[in-house]
C-alpha cells in the first residue's frame, strides 16, 4: 500500500527533523535571546533618557518614533544573526545530505532538484521565524511598559528581516551545493557578505553605478525596512536574488549531471537573474509605512508636487563623500523620488571627497531644471529643496499645518524584566527545549 502523504511533505518533515537535531540551529536560538535583549534594553534606556527620564531635556522626546528609537536597534540583532549564525544553519541543512550520502538516495526519488531545495528553504525560513521570537516578544514587553506600537511599521520591519534571511539562506544554499565541504561553503558565504559590504563602501566613495548597486545589498535593503520604507524594486530584486540562489543550489545538487552542463545552466540562471534585476529597477512604486512618515514629505507638499507634470532634473555639484550630498539625498531627494518617479538627478564632482573642490567655481551648487526654466540653490534641507521647486514651478507653497506633524511617543520607563526574559528565561527555555526535542526526534 502506498503512502498517502505526497513525497514533498515527507521531505518537509525530514528537513524539519534535521533542523531540530541541528546543534547550529539551537545555538542560533540560544544566541538570539541575549543579542535581542542587549539591543532592546539599550534602546529602551536611550529612548527613556531622550523622553525625559531622570530630568533630561523635556520635550526632546516629542518627535521620538519607536520605530527608529526602539525597533530598528532591537531588530538589528536579527541582521547580525542573519549574517553570522544563520548561514551555518543553512549550510548544515543543505550540505548534510551531501556529506552523509543521503543525497545519493534522495535524488533517486525523481523530485525536481528545485523542489528539494525549496523544501529546505521553507524549513530554514520557519526556523528563522522561531529565531525571531525574542524580537517579537520584545514588542509585547514594550506594550506592557505602555509603549506605543504601529502595526504597519512593525510588519514592514519583520518582512524586511524575513527577506534578509531569505537572501542569506539562498546564498548559503548555493554555496553549500557548489562546494565539496561545508567549511568551504561557510568561507564562500561570508566572503560574499563581506563583498556586499565592500560594495557599500565603494558606493559611498565612488557614487554613480556603484552607489546604485550598493542600494540593493542586503544591508541597504534592511536599512530601508528599518525606516519603514517598502520599495517595490528592492523587494522584487531581493526575491529575484533569492530565487537565483536557490536555482544555483538546485543546479549544483544534481550529482548525476556533467559539470560542464551545470556550468552552462548556472550561466543561464545568472543571465536570467541579471535580466530580472534590470527589469525590477524600473519598478518605482514605494510605500512609507512609518507612523512618522519619515520617508515622505508632508501630505500637502506631496499634493503640490503632484501638480508638476513637467519632468524635473536636478544637477548636484557635490562629491560622494561630502556630508551635504548625503543630507540632500536622505532628507529631500529620496522623498522627492517617491512623489516624482520621473525625477532625474545627476551628480557632478571631480573627486570623491570634494575636499579640494571647495574653492572651485560651481562646487556646492544644486541646479534645478524644469522645462526651459532653471534655478540654482545651495540648500540641502527638505524645506529648502521644496521652496526652490515651488518657486521654479510657479506654485504657491502649501499652508503648513501643525495637525499632520508627527508628535512622537515619548516613554520614560526602564526596561523592567527584560534582562530576566532575554538573559535567563529565553536561554533556559532554549536549553530545555533542545534537550527534550532532540531526544524525542532521535
Amino acid at each position, binding site marked *: *500500500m502506498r503512502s498517502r502523504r505526497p513525497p514533498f511533505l515527507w521531505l518537509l518533515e*525530514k528537513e524539519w527533523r534535521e533542523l531540530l537535531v541541528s546543534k547550529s540551529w539551537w545555538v542560533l536560538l540560544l544566541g538570539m535571546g541575549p543579542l535581542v535583549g542587549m539591543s532592546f534594553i539599550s534602546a529602551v534606556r536611550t529612548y527613556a533618557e531622550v523622553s525625559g527620564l531622570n530630568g533630561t531635556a523635556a520635550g526632546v522626546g516629542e518627535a521620538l518614533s519607536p520605530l527608529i528609537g526602539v525597533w530598528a536597534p532591537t531588530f538589528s540583532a536579527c541582521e547580525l544573526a542573519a549574517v553570522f549564525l544563520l548561514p551555518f544553519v543553512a549550510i548544515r541543512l543543505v550540505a548534510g545530505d551531501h556529506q*552523509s*550520502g543521503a543525497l545519493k*538516495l534522495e535524488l*533517486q*526519488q525523481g523530485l525536481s532538484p528545485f523542489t528539494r531545495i525549496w523544501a529546505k528553504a521553507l524549513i530554514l525560513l520557519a526556523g528563522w521565524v522561531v529565531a525571531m521570537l525574542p524580537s517579537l516578544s520584545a514588542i509585547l514587553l514594550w506594550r506592557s511598559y505602555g509603549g506605543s506600537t504601529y502595526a504597519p511599521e512593525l510588519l514592514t520591519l519583520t518582512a524586511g528581516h524575513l527577506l534578509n534571511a531569505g537572501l542569506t539562506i539562498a546564498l548559503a544554499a548555493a554555496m553549500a551545493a557548489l562546494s565539496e565541504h561545508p567549511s568551504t561553503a561557510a568561507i564562500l558565504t561570508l566572503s560574499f557578505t563581506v563583498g556586499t559590504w565592500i560594495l557599500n563602501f565603494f558606493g559611498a566613495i565612488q557614487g554613480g553605478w556603484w552607489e546604485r548597486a550598493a542600494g540593493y545589498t542586503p544591508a541597504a535593503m534592511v536599512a530601508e525596512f528599518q525606516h519603514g520604507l517598502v520599495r517595490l524594486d528592492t523587494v522584487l530584486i531581493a526575491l529575484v536574488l533569492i530565487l537565483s540562489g536557490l536555482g544555483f543550489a538546485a543546479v549544483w545538487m544534481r550529482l*548525476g549531471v556533467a559539470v560542464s552542463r551545470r556550468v552552462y545552466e548556472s550561466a543561464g540562471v545568472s543571465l536570467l537573474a541579471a535580466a530580472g534585476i534590470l527589469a525590477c529597477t524600473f519598478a518605482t512604486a514605494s510605500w512609507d509605512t512609518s507612523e512618522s512618515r519619515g520617508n515622505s514629505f508632508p501630505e500637502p507638499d506631496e499634493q503640490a508636487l503632484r501638480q508638476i507634470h513637467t519632468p524635473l532634473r536636478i544637477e548636484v555639484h557635490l562629491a560622494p563623500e561630502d556630508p551635504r550630498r548625503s543630507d540632500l539625498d536622505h532628507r529631500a531627494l529620496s522623498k522627492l523620488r517617491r512623489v516624482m518617479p520621473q525625477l532625474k538627478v545627476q551628480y557632478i564632482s571631480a573627486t570623491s571627497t570634494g575636499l579640494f573642490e571647495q574653492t572651485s567655481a560651481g562646487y556646492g551648487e544644486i541646479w534645478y531644471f524644469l522645462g526651459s526654466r532653471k534655478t540654482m540653490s545651495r540648500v540641502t534641507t527638505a524645506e529648502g529643496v521644496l521652496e526652490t521647486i515651488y518657486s521654479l514651478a510657479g506654485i504657491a507653497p502649501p499652508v503648513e499645518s501643525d495637525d499632520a506633524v508627527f508628535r512622537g511617543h515619548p516613554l520614560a520607563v526602564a526596561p523592567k524584566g527584560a534582562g530576566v526574559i532575554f538573559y535567563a528565561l529565553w536561554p533556559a527555555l532554549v536549553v530545555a527545549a533542545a534537550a527534550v526535542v532532540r531526544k524525542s526526534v*532521535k
Partner: protein
Amino acid sequence: MLFEVTGLSKRFGAIAALRDVSFRVREGEVLGLIGPNGAGKSTLFECLGGALPSDSGVIRAGGRTVGARERPSLLFYVPDSIAPWPTQTARWALDFTIGFFHGQSQLRDEVVEQLDLRPLLNQPIGTLSKGQRKRVLLGIGLLTRQPALLIDEPFEGLDLRQRRDIAAALRAHAARGRTLFLSIHQINDAARFCDRFVLLSSGRVCGEGTVEELAGLAAARDQTTPLQDLEEVFLALT
C-alpha cells in the same frame, strides 16, 4: 531482459574509470558485478544510479532508451559506505523510505526480521557500526519498489553468519521477481550467490555470463580445458 547497458564510459581527468562498458540484465536474476578493487565497480553503479554523470553510454529497456528522469522508475541504487540521515533512527529511515520513495510497506516487518533490524530500530544511523549500517541500507533498498535493485558491496562489513542470513534474504526477494545487481569484490561470495556475472577489470567488461559460460569463454581464449572455479576463471579472463 530487464535492461541493457551499452557503451558506458567515464573518465576522471586522465584516468579512464570505465571504458565502453556493455552488458545485459535479465529480469529476476541475481547478477554479480565482480572485479578487484579499483576495477570501476562503484563508478559503474554510481553512473547507473544517477549519482555520477557518465561521459557516454545508454541504458535501454523495452527497446527504448531510458533517460535520466525515467531511471528512478527502473532501478534503485544503494551505495556503499554512506551513513544517510545520521541523526535519525533506523526506524525513521525505513518509514521515510516507504513514504518518500513509495516503498513497499507490506514488506516492512519481513525485512526487519530478515535483516535482524529490530534491535537497531531506535538507534540513530550515525551511531551504528559499519555492519549494522549496511543492514539498514539493505533494508532501505529492499523496501523500495523499483524492478531492479543495485547494491554496492552488500556483504561488506558483515560477519559470516550475517552474510549467510542476508544472502538468504536477498535470495527470497529475488525469488519474488526482483532483479538484484550486486557489486561484490569477494569472488567466492559472488560465486555462491549470483546467477550470472559481469567481470570488470580496469574499467572494461572482460566477460558476462554464468560460471560455465565464462569458463567456456576463458577456455576458448586460452585453448585449455574449462575451469570450474570462478576465481580461476576471473584470473584467466582478466
